[in-house]
């Protein structure tokens, strides 16, 4: 080996080739390499004319594997940190990996002040975590480097100081102060990145400084607040954002400073200053100009990042002073007019926190903005406003009334919000029983009229009014105000309204509660006298909006009315269970809407329906679900929703207005194809349907075929007709076994098919008009999710393969594809295929025989090696692999394939790409 290295040493002008380097490495990591060789290798490496990161790596390998040579190797590494290039960074990284105890203070400092700029930055960034140095030394080095001529070095040292403030114990006040003041100086730095880090240092070390001396805490807090405020007008967006996140950390600030930050004018010597002591007053006079209007500027900023950050900082600052909270609220309300959704949401989030702390004092002047957000076109914004309405205390009746009006308007314009709006009503009622008492008379009249059918029956509105009335007495004893008949009316809407109370009781408890309250008490209340009400109300001392007050529930059901909303989160054990039942309820809520929508479609309101569907879909996809049962429920609902959406879209083509334009036909055909595919997916990928549900789905398939025959089919009429008949006979046989009446559509279709069969042989002669007649009879049935439905799913992974690391193959010979497969809910009667498709369209199927594979139960995992036979004559190729399920329910097969699946396939997982590369590449 020495001989091979010899020529290298002689020609020191030539850099070491990669080949040589790799052989050196193999020698180095071999523990039995003789010392003499190692020594000459070390020499070679250190004398190498142009060190690269390869040689550095080798040096560190050498140091780790051969401890006797570690010192000279380290020396050599340290020597190369002098390199002005990026190599210095590499050598520093290598040194840090070795983490020698020999790296003493002196050496550490000399590395930190090395001539290489990237090296310095690297050291400052990593010194805290990779080197074990004393905090005092680190502090000195970092502070010293804040005067480096290079901006990035200064920024890195400041960042290091920020990190140090988190876990260092600094007892010496003057040391903390020195660091803080140094950062303040850098507020005037020319470079944005330095100012940014300086702001972070001032925020973090300012806190340390204020915490270091209890007497001076207020003084230093004000000081830090003012300094951070002065950076709110920096020209760099990032600096401004950082300044506001610094403000969000303040622990205490004098009220006058806070108020000054909301006003661009410097507040005068008037009464504001009476509260201040001498020191604060002098301090205020000095700093007022830099504080002036800082928060207002932040909220007015051009960049949404800054506005958001400013809103966020108010979150913390409003806790510090009630008066400030009140003034800041005026500005926050204006943020609801912002053009960025992110900012609007952040403003609402801040208000929500204020409400939780009881500092959200809504005033009449805020209502237009605040309640206006209830009809915002962004779902999250509406939701956030309702979230606040659920906890806020409203000051007077007028506000309470306009809140109700706006919530009802919200309900009118956005049907999909119903569940949450109802819940908001329920909370409003619980929190404002007194106001409910004031409006109960008119409510009663309206509800009464609606139930007697005198009025146009607006069910959502009535349900909402009922909810607010029945929720008022929930935690309160004085019930006389609410007429019992309202409770009986509420019983009739139980199914619709019980969700609004789901945070405190379930459906049955609510029913029991309603039943008990609907029994008329001794004094008849059927016609309420307003004066009586007021008399009763006058007995109520003040309003106790938060239901966590000691409201007495004087009924047997009281004990069953469970935990408060806040407590619910504690029941972590039940969480999965409750989440699941919540999901079931939600899913059924959605499923129940479809039949109604169908009626809307028949009256031509397709666009409205499509809009609601889109919203529902958005909501479903945004749900965050943990348990597998809930996932199954969601998968089902989502798929069903997609089918309905496609059906709605297809149906639109059949409406007279759209008729028969040719471009429409192509689209219709495309959509029908998609619909067909989706329904089959529903039928095969989900199991556990009851017979009735299965009938429903089969009916959908019949509809699809009938549509096809009626509108688009010209080529495959016979095949489609055959399929239609086969499905129909399937339906027929199922109907025979059960006492279910077939739908009008199925009956009419049966008649039609019978006619066709008696008249002639195939569907070609079938008049299209007759399908039209059947289809008109179709209507969507209600689907109820009972929790039995499971989703068939497969996961496929192929490890150690990507475009950079392909599997080897020899062209013409079969190649193996090692798959790791996990199956969920697959039963043995399923027929699974591994579908491998090649770029040019060639497909090869491999049957997965479930009886011969390992694993049992709902979740099965196993490894499977699939052969691929037709490897091409190419340097590399790519296969798309996918696990698919054969649709067995349909007995008509479209194409006869040899050796492959007989029926259509439904994919169970995402396609996986596998890369191969020829071994014999030239």
């Amino acid at each position, binding site marked *: 080996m020495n001989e091979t290295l010899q020529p290298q040493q002689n020609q020191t002008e030539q850099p070491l080739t990669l080949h040589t380097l790799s052989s050196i490495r193999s020698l180095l990591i071999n523990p039995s390499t003789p010392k003499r060789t190692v020594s000459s290798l070390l020499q070679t490496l250190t004398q190498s004319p142009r060190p690269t990161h390869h040689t550095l790596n080798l040096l560190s390998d050498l140091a780790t594997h051969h401890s006797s040579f570690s010192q000279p190797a380290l020396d050599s590494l340290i020597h190369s940190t002098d390199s*002005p290039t990026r190599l210095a960074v590499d050598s520093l990284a290598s040194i840090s990996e070795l983490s020698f105890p020999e790296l003493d203070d002196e050496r550490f400092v000399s590395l930190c002040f090395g001539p290489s700029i990237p090296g310095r930055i690297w050291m400052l960034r990593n010194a805290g975590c990779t080197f074990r140095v004393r905090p005092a030394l680190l502090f000195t080095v970092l502070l*010293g480097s804040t*005067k480096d001529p290079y901006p990035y070095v200064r920024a890195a040292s400041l960042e290091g100081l920020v990190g140090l403030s988190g876990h260092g114990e600094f007892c010496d006040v003057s040391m903390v102060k020195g660091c803080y003041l140094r950062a303040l100086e850098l507020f*005037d730095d*020319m470079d944005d990145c330095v100012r940014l880090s300086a702001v972070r240092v001032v925020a973090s070390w300012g806190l340390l400084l204020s915490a270091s001396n209890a007497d001076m805490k207020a003084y230093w807090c004000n000081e830090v607040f003012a300094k951070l405020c002065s950076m709110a007008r*920096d*020209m760099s967006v990032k600096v401004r954002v950082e300044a506001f996140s610094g403000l969000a950390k303040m622990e205490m600030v004098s009220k006058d400073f806070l108020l000054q930050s909301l006003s661009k004018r410097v507040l005068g010597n008037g009464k504001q200053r009476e509260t201040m002591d001498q020191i604060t007053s002098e301090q205020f006079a000095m700093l007022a100009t830099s504080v002036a209007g800082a928060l207002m500027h932040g909220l*007015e900023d051009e960049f949404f990042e800054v506005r958001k950050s400013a809103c966020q900082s108010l979150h913390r600052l409003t806790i510090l002073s009630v008066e400030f909270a009140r003034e800041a609220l005026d500005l926050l309300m204006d943020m609801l*007019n912002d053009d960025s959704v992110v900012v609007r949401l952040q403003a609402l989030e801040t208000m929500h926190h204020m409400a939780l702390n009881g500092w959200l004092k809504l005033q009449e002047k805020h209502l237009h903005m605040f309640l206006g957000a209830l009809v915002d076109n*962004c779902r999250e914004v509406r939701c956030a406003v309702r979230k606040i309405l659920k906890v806020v205390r409203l000051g007077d009746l007028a506000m309470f009334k306009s809140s109700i009006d706006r919530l009802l308007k919200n309900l009118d314009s956005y049907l999909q919000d119903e569940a949450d709006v109802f819940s908001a009503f329920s909370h409003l009622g619980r929190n404002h029983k007194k106001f409910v008492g004031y409006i109960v008379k008119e409510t009663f009249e309206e509800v009464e009229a609606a139930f007697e059918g005198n009025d146009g029956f607006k069910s959502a509105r009535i349900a909402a009014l009922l909810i607010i009335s029945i929720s008022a007495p929930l935690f309160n004893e004085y019930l006389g105000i609410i007429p019992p008949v309202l409770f009986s009316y509420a019983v009739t809407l139980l199914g619709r309204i019980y969700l609004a109370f789901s945070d405190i009781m379930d459906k049955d408890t609510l029913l029991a509660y309603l039943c008990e309250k609907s029994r008329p008490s001794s004094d008849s209340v059927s016609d309420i006298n307003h004066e009586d009400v007021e008399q009763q109300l006058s007995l109520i001392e003040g309003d106790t909006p938060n239901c966590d007050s000691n409201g007495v529930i004087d009924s047997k059901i009281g004990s069953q009315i469970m935990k408060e909303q806040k407590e619910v989160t504690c029941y972590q054990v039940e969480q999965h269970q409750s989440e699941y039942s919540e999901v079931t309820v939600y899913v059924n809520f959605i499923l129940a809407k479809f039949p109604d929508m169908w009626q809307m479609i028949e009256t031509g309101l397709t666009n409205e329906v499509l809009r609601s569907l889109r919203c529902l879909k958005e909501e479903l996809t945004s749900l965050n679900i943990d348990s597998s049962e809930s996932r199954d429920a969601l998968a089902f609902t989502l798929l069903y929703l997609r089918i309905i959406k496609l059906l709605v879209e297809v149906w639109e083509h059949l409406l007279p207005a759209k008729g028969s334009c040719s471009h429409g036909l192509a689209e219709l055909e495309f959509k029908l194809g998609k619909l067909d595919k989706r329904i089959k997916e529903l039928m095969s990928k989900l199991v556990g349907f009851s017979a009735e549900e299965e009938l429903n789905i089969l009916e959908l398939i019949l509809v699809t075929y009938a549509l096809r025959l009626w509108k688009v089919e010209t080529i495959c009429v016979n095949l489609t007709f055959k399929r239609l008949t086969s499905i129909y006979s399937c339906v027929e046989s199922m109907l025979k076994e059960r006492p279910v009446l077939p739908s009008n559509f199925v009956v009419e279709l049966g008649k039609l098919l019978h006619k066709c069969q008696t008249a002639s042989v195939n569907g070609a002669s079938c008049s299209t008009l007759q399908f039209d007649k059947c289809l008109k009879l179709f209507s969507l049935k209600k689907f109820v999710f009972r929790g039995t439905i499971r989703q068939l799913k497969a996961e496929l992974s192929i490890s150690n393969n990507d475009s950079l690391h392909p599997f080897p193959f020899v062209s013409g010979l079969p190649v193996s594809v090692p798959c790791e497969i996990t199956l969920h809910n697959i039963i043995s009667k399923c027929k699974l295929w591994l579908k491998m498709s090649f770029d040019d369209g060639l497909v090869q199927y491999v049957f997965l025989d479930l009886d011969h594979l390992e694993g049992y139960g709902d979740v099965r995992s196993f490894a499977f090696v699939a052969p691929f036979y037709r490897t091409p004559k190419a340097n590399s190729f790519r296969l798309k692999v996918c696990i698919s399920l054969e649709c067995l329910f349909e007995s008509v097969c479209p194409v006869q394939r040899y050796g492959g699946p007989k029926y259509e396939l439904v994919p169970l997982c995402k396609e996986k790409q596998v890369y191969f590369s020829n071994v014999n590449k030239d």
Partner: protein
Amino acid sequence: MAIETLVLGAGQEVGKSCVVVNINGKRIMFDCGMHMGYNDHRQFPDFSLISPSGDFNDALSCIIITHFHLDHVGALAYFTEVCGYGGPVYMTYPTKALSPLMLEDYRKVMVDRRGEEELFTSDHIAECMKKVIAVDLKQTVQVDEDLEIRAYYAGHVIGAAMFYVKVGDAEMVYTGDYNMTPDRHLGAAQIDRLRLDLLITESTYATTIRDSKYAREREFLKAIHKCVSSGGKVLIPTFALGRAQDQNSGKTIGTAREMNGLYYLDGIQFGNTSFFGSNSTNSELCILLEDYWERMNLKVPIYFSAGLTIQANMYYKMLIGWTSQKIKDTYSTHNAFDFKNVHKFERSMLDAPGPCVLFATPGMISGGFSLEVFKHWAPSENNLVTLPGYCLAGTVGHKLTSGKSTNIDIDPDTQIDVRCQIHQLAFSPHTDSKGIMDLVKFLSPKHVILVHGEKPKMDSLRERIHSELEIPCYNPANNETKCSSVDTPNSTLIDRNLTPELKVEDERVADGVLVMESNKKAKIVHRDEVLIMLDKKKQEV
């Protein structure tokens, strides 16, 4: 060494901005505006003070124009074509595109309508524009060997810029007009922290501190929403967008002149609303409404009256890079100047039932279509009229804002019974005094000179800058020269942050080689790295 500032216009006044600065031997003219309040020699800056001999080419290194308002660009064609300056003129791209339109517009009104003496011709404007070199924001332009200039975003109007000038080690900034608070369609001024010897800043609102614009927006939207949701009609009179189309522009009322919405009264500018200035307010309102409509799902139609073309919006659409951050961020999906809810108004819709919002000209309801609409809509208390912040005496707008009179005489025969609601609203594209202070504080120059403002207010601001920021500050009058001494040479090579206590010595601070390989991003490397990159050995001689 000193920087010499000769103020030719806008010294202790607003109008004909023109400042000539002598910096390290280079003479630069900032802005070349005309005064709209005068008709005589005072209309233009006194150019003879630059060079008594009239040889401007030798006397000036270049001219820099900050934006296209006439009080900043109005005298340019005259100076280059009539006075004979032939050197380079620098301005931003939008300013170059819009200035000739402004000049031509002015010329037409003056000559064609009012028959005044022609100061420059259309050909002059065209020839003048040939001398203009357009620059981009933050692009450093080397005017000659020693002189470099750079433009920074100034807000104010589209294309407005502040200019940074560096000659040797002397540096300065001339702000032009700027705005430190953003609005919905233009951003706030944006500049780097520089080491300046001199800052020349506008001071239109030297003592005003403006409240949050949100309150104004909120009230405006609330009023409009209330009106349309109760079925009322909203009339928003605005200044003309098109060029010299409005019958009323150029009309003299008292001592004030209206020039496409640019109002001057006794030499003081009131509504900075000319052409694009006016469109500025227009676009601002329209974007505000459009946003609100979108968010609240409102379906009430918004109309532009027929005379009010959306032509100027076309410029905004093209110059999207010069608008506010939000518009820049979203324009790929939706151009904010494509107003979805805006339709054209037909006269026949005047008495049509149902709510609507209408933008109509002219701005102060002094006649024309907005007056016609006003006659129809004013008698109903359901309707709403919004008015600009300032209305000239004698216009209907003024009568509406000044008193509670319910009867307004349009002419001897007609009297309108005004029952509709009135809402007043103002947007200003200038920075307030807080903004000026903030900018001065951020830049911390060695000297400040105030221009473009009213003398008493400037005096008070000057005192504040002097006392609060401890920076010497001046507000010279027209034709005065101010010397600001620059004693301590400042080198850009060594950072000001370095204090003698701890100094990290590094000889190679300014060393670096810019390497541009084909198809690769340019990068700066250390000189020792160059050899490695090129794979060459070092040759010692």
